[in-house]
Every structure is written in C-alpha cells, then in structure tokens.
C-alpha cells in the first residue's frame, strides 16, 4: 500500500465463521455473572456472512522524500523494492526501520534534473535482477550482484525516436508509466501514453512488439496537454500464460491485445452499458471520417473516465478493472 511516502504491509483475511457459545460472555459481549454459570460448554463456530478484513502488519519507516510510484516483492519472498521519482530502496519484509538505497538518480544540482524514475519491478525468477523505467522512455535493467548501489545499469532499453512523429510532446508521450515482466521472465512490457511495447530482455535496441492503445489521440496531444490528461499514468498487465496483454484507456475503455493471434479488442467497463453476467460488446472508436453505427467518435470520448489500473489473475481468465469510482471484475464467458 503506497500512501505517498509510507509503505504499509497489510494482511487481508476473509472471515466467514464466528464463534458462539462462550462460557463467560453473552453473545452480545456482556459478561455473565460467574455465580450463575452452572455448566460448561465448548464454543462452536457458526457460519456468518463473508467479511474481508485488512489489518496493517508492518509499517515501513519513511525512507522516501518523493512520491512512491512502485513496490515490487522479490521472488525470494523476503525482500522488496520501493521506488520514488529519484530513488529506489531495498527492504526486508521483516525489518521496518531500515532500507538500503540501490538506485539514486538525484543530481547534485536539482536544476539539472531532466529525468525521473517512473516504475520499477523485480524479475519474477532472478532475485538479483530488477528494472526501472524513466520519464524519457528508457528502461534500465540492473543486477544487484554487480554493486551495492546500482548506478550503472547492466542493460539499457530504448527505442530510437520516429522522426516523422516528432513534436513538442514527443518526450512526454514517451514517458513510461508502467513496466511489467512477463510471467516467464523472458519479456517485459512497458506502457507509454499511446502504446504498449513488448521487449525481449536480450534485445535492447527496440521492442519486439508494439501495440497502439489509442493512436487517434495523437492529433489531440495539445488539448490533452492543456487538460493534463497527457500526464495520466496507465498500468498494463499480462495474462497468466503471457499470450494476452491488457491496458486501460479513456471513456472507461480498456484494451486487450492477443499477441499470438494478432487480434485486439476494446471493451467498456460501465454499468450503464452492460449488466452483470452479460457478455461485453466490443467497442470501436472512429478516428476520423464517417462514423459508423455503434462507433464512438473521438470528440465524444469522456476523458474524465479513465481506466488507469488493471489486473489479470495469474492463472485464470479473470480480470479486475478500476474506473474512477468502481471496480469491475470480469471473467471468461462460461459456456
């Protein structure tokens, strides 16, 4: 749980039973008069409505001066990292008052600051490896065995800029908002403002796949800069077998890209437009020209309805999608 600069570890538990039949207490909690107790009984657990509880278990000392953007638990299940705009710290789950700084990009003179850390994640299998992304569209892979302070990256992933698409907004839209390793640990995915990119960890020069999330926004960048939407940070996620990736967009739309079948779909998370247990209807945005029936034009998109957070169950085809005020859970159509 990231609350700006404090990290808390919570235990989430479900309770669906409660004890009944205490000897010394009434069911409502009042204490019985011991003089009136004439027999003993064993309390029993009886079912109750499911209750989900969250209780804080650890609070990790304030080791961050800037807003935390990522937390990632290591594959060793003992350590985790936390990243803010300028630093990445390494923690032990059991030790709350100490952390080790492993990346620090703060310049001596803050006026020289031109790049910040935007996301970080541990490799799913190699507990010495992690990556972090930047506001300039680069990803650095670091190996903690090399040195205590991972100032020098082992690999630098960066795609050369496309000169034909150059504008004053190029840097802003190249800023990476999320980075996620694939479950098999061979690829990583990055999300920038307009696209999702899949990188092979063995190739630093360019991504192996690029998917356009909402390319129709490219001609609206100035307006999106004006209303600050261009700074929205979208997450992305893999499905369990790394064959499909998903990310959010505006108008409560979210997008899925099937890597193998080269298909993509746009769906909407909205109570008005679909009922529970109803199969979601694919959406289409009309980028220009004549709008077909059922298509939505770019100008009628609601930029206040943004889906920034999405998650995919690690094994099953169940997804969670967060709109501004609601959390939607979707699953595969059950035949």
């Amino acid at each position, binding site marked *: 749980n990231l609350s*700006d600069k404090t990290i808390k570890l919570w235990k989430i538990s479900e309770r669906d039973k409660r004890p009944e039949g205490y000897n010394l207490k009434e069911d409502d909690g009042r204490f019985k008069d011991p003089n009136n107790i004439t027999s003993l009984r064993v309390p029993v657990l009886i079912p109750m409505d499911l209750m989900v509880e969250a209780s804080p278990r650890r609070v990790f000392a304030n080791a961050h*001066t*800037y*807003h935390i953007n990522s937390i990632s638990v290591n594959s060793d299940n003992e350590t985790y990292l936390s990243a803010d*705009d*300028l630093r990445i710290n390494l923690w032990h789950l059991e030790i709350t008052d100490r952390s080790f700084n492993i990346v620090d990009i703060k310049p001596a*003179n*803050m*006026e020289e*600051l*031109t*790049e*910040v850390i*935007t996301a970080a994640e541990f490799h799913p299998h190699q507990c010495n490896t992690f990556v972090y992304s930047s*506001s300039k569209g680069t990803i650095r892979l670091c190996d903690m065995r090399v040195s205590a302070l991972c100032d020098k990256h082992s690999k630098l992933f960066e795609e050369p800029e496309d000169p034909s698409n*150059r*504008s*004053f*907004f190029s*840097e*802003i839209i190249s*800023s990476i908002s999320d980075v996620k390793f694939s479950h098999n640990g061979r690829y990583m995915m990055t999300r920038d403002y307009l696209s999702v990119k899949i990188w092979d960890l063995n190739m630093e020069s360019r991504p192996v796949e690029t998917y356009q999330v909402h390319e129709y926004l*490219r*001609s*609206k*960048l*100035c*307006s999106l*800069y*004006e209303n*600050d939407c261009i*700074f929205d940070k979208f997450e992305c996620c893999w499905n369990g077998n790394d064959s499909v990736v998903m990310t959010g967009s505006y108008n409560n739309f979210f997008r899925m890209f099937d890597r193998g079948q080269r298909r993509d779909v746009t769906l909407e998370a909205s109570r008005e437009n679909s009922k529970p247990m109803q199969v979601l209807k694919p959406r289409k945005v009309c980028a220009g020209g004549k709008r077909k029936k059922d298509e939505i034009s770019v100008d009628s998109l609601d930029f206040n309805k943004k889906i920034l957070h999405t998650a995919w169950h690690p094994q099953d085809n169940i997804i969670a999608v967060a709109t501004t005020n609601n959390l939607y859970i979707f699953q595969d159509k059950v035949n």
Partner: protein
Amino acid sequence: MFPKGTKRKFSDSGEEPVSSGDQSPPAASSAVARTLSSSYSLQRQSLLDMSLIKLQLCHMLVEPNLCRSVLIANTVRQIQEEMTQDGTWQIMTQALAAAQCPADRLVATEVLCRQTDAAAQAGQSPKPFSVVGLEEGYHSEEVVMEGDVETEVTMSTLSPVSPQLSSASYLAGPFGMGPCWEEEEEDGECEEDEEEDSEECVSEGEEGDRDHLSEDSRTGEQVFGTFEIKHPAPPPDPALEELFSDVDPSYYDLDTVLTGMQAAPKMGPYDLLESLSSHGPTTLSSSSSCRSDLNELDHIMEIIVGS
C-alpha cells in the same frame, strides 16, 4: 482547443506582413519574420505560455508532482532551443532587455520622474516574492503604443485576449505577478478606451491593483513590468517561509527546480519564468515592425532624454 498537435513544420509564410526590402533589420530577421508569421510559431508561443503557467501552478501545489514538473520544464526547454535556432528567442530577449533597461524604456517624461524606486532600477535583480504574487500567477498584458511615432507598435504579449491567440481557455484572465509595475507610454499618449488616467500607474511595491490591471488586460495601459517569481535567496519572504516551514526540506530542492533559485547565466526554462513580463514575445504580425520600431523609439527616447 487546438485543432492538432504542434508539429515541427513551418507553414506557408503567405501572411507575412513586411517585406524585407524596406526594413533596416538584416535579412535574417525577415526570415525570422516569415517564421514568426506562421501559425506554427503562434501555436508554439501558446504552448510556451501554457507550459510556463503550468510550471508555476506546479510550484503552488502543496505536494508538487516532480515527474510532471520535469516533463513540462523539458518541454519549455525544447521550445526555447528551437526558438533560439530560429532567432525568435533573440528577438524576444532583446525586447525584454529593451524593456528592462531604463535608458531604452518607452516612458513618458512624467513617468520617468516616478521611477524613483530603487527596485525599479534594479531591473533584473531578484525581487521578493509575495504570497499574493503566488496566487495571482502570471500576468499578461497587451501594450499598445502610439503617438508622435507614426507607427503603431503592438507589443502583444501573452495576452489572453489577443485575437491571434486562439486558445485562451487556460489563461483565465489577468493575473498579477510580482510587485513591480510601471506604466510606460510614448510621449504621454496611449491609445485607448481605457478608463484609467494614463498617468495612473501602479507604483513599485504595489502588488498591482488588480482592478487596475484587470481593466488593462484588454488593451491599453502600457504597463511594462519586471516581475519575477523567484524566491530570493536573502531575504526570504516571511509569508513564504511560513507557507513552507513544515515542508520536508527536499521541497526546497523542488523549488529550485521549478523557479531557478539563482539567476543562471544562460536562459533556461526557469530563467524564462523570471524574465517573463507583460511584454513577452511579440505577435506574429508585428514582430519585425516591432523591432524596427524599437530602433526608432530608441532614437526618439534619446531625443527626449537628451542624451
């Protein structure tokens, strides 16, 4: 809203208002004029204005977003670099310098007499940053000069009401910024429908009668000002200190990032914030005429001042 994102293209210069032949400025400036005449440069200017306002607003947040500030600052830097290559930047800084240098000021005699405040003379030195200035953000004024000088110079700035600037939605009206405003006119004349007496100028140290300035926003009162949004190193404004007293010291670093604590020799994006004034970049239509007019006005100034 803009019809499209700003692209690095120079549009056709058909709207160029001046021919290169009868201007004293060198040919380079007419090439510049061609550039400046394009809607591209207008969009670029608007983008610059918008970015500077955003940077300022970033600064005013209780919990500033560093990533966003850095991205906006980089955008400003990019624009600045491109404008430097165009030569547009030089024109703008010259206009700023002209306005800041007392000798070149276009001031009426009586107003000249009022320039007694030492702060005004200080020109480019940092001035205390008031809380009010903080809230008011960033002022834009349109300055119109005319008089004995035949030409009419429109030093348009980042005025929200300039007809050529298509998007004014983000400039929510005039903001005052900083304490020093002076009124300047050419030979005591000013073109106008303004209510105020042209003599009525905001004296140094006044935040700016906001009302006075609001009326000015349309046309009018020729008000040049040197205002800055920098934190002074010494002495700190007590109101500001209080604002930030319980903030993590690292936020002072952020302040440095956002406001450029000390004047750096080169004009970075943070320096631009400091040198922003009502007489910002000239409009596209009058840029080169403005420049030549500055020369003429300099000449006239010399006569007036008797130097």
